[in-house]
């Protein structure tokens, strides 16, 4: 059956199907339809290409952001070179990346208390270059993992990078931790 304009399979169902999270009966229904409807099959193929493009995009080290250990473990399994800095509040640490590092992971210990939201600000030579707001994960155990492309660090001159975490709790903001990375340039093997 080729039904022009057919949208029997919603994007939500296609997402759950691709994630392998639809009950068998519903997945079988989708499969029956996909093999008889060219319109929906084309949309499914397009969506599948998008899902497949996520892995190389992440692996290209061009994404960054807040992650969990599950993502870091996957990156490690795929051979992505991740340089990790584990920082406690108030830490001032020398920071350098090797020329073959692909990602830098900042493991920021912080006092989130009961806060559900945070803001992270990164300043280079006093100028804010990153400002993100997110939710504190239940599994964070007082740590936020933030990854950024190593290429970005490599391009920096010898400079101090300040990272400031702010916790949002009950409509109020309070400092959760601040950290200083003293960038000393790129290292070569």
């Amino acid at each position, binding site marked *: 059956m080729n039904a022009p304009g057919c949208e029997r399979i919603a994007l939500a169902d296609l*997402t759950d199907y691709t994630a392998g999270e639809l009950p068998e009966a519903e997945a079988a229904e989708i499969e029956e339809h996909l*093999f008889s409807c060219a319109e929906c099959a084309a949309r499914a193929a397009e969506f*599948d290409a*998008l899902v497949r*493009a996520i892995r*190389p995009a992440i692996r290209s080290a*061009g994404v960054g952001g*807040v992650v*969990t250990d599950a993502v870091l473990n996957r990156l490690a*399994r795929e051979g992505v070179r991740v340089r990790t800095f584990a920082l406690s509040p108030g830490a001032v640490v020398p920071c350098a990346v090797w020329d073959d590092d692909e990602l830098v992971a900042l493991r920021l210990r912080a006092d989130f208390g009961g806060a559900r939201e945070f803001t992270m600000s990164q300043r280079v030579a006093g100028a804010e270059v990153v400002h993100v707001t997110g939710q504190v994960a239940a599994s964070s155990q007082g740590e936020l993992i933030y990854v950024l492309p190593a290429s970005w660090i490599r391009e920096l001159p010898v400079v101090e990078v300040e990272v400031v975490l702010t916790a949002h709790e009950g409509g109020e903001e309070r400092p959760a931790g601040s950290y200083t990375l003293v960038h000393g340039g790129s290292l070569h093997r």
Partner: protein
Amino acid sequence: MPDTDVTLEAVGDEALARRIAGGLPGSTDAEEAELYRRFAPRVRLYGRRHLQNDAAADDLAQDVLLVTIERLHAGEVRRPEEIGSFILGTSRMMAHGERRLARRREALAARFIDTGAETAAWSTASLDAPRVAACLRALAERDRLVVLLTFYAEREAPRIAEDLGVSPGAVRAIRHRAMTRLRDCVLGGARP
């Protein structure tokens, strides 16, 4: 030839199957290529869900379409009007066989082969990775994290929910929203 291609594209699935079934092997190359073009992506999608391996899904698509074309030539597809169902059935049968074979391979590998250095199978994506990366960066932190945990770290919604401290339903809702935005950004050409 372009004219032939246009004509074939307009031919329905049933008529295409009948042309292959009615032609001698070697005389229906264009029709076979058209059948492959239409159905290989669907078999690949099916394979990825059921085999959880991109390379195995690619192989499944080739094998299923090869068997389908052979059966058509041999006159063994009794209902060409249901060629889609025939291909889905063949996909199910061959994926089931592949899963059994994979389990045997894993059991043998566990006994005899050191798989510690094995890396994930990789298939070439057809979309522009820098564009996808830019669109992923443009997502909200939590939305991006849910997408990464689902489609990169291969975590299921209940496990993600546990990690993030939300309900599995909320994870699915976040994922739907994020994938809609990602699709609009990557395929719709919206500015990241």
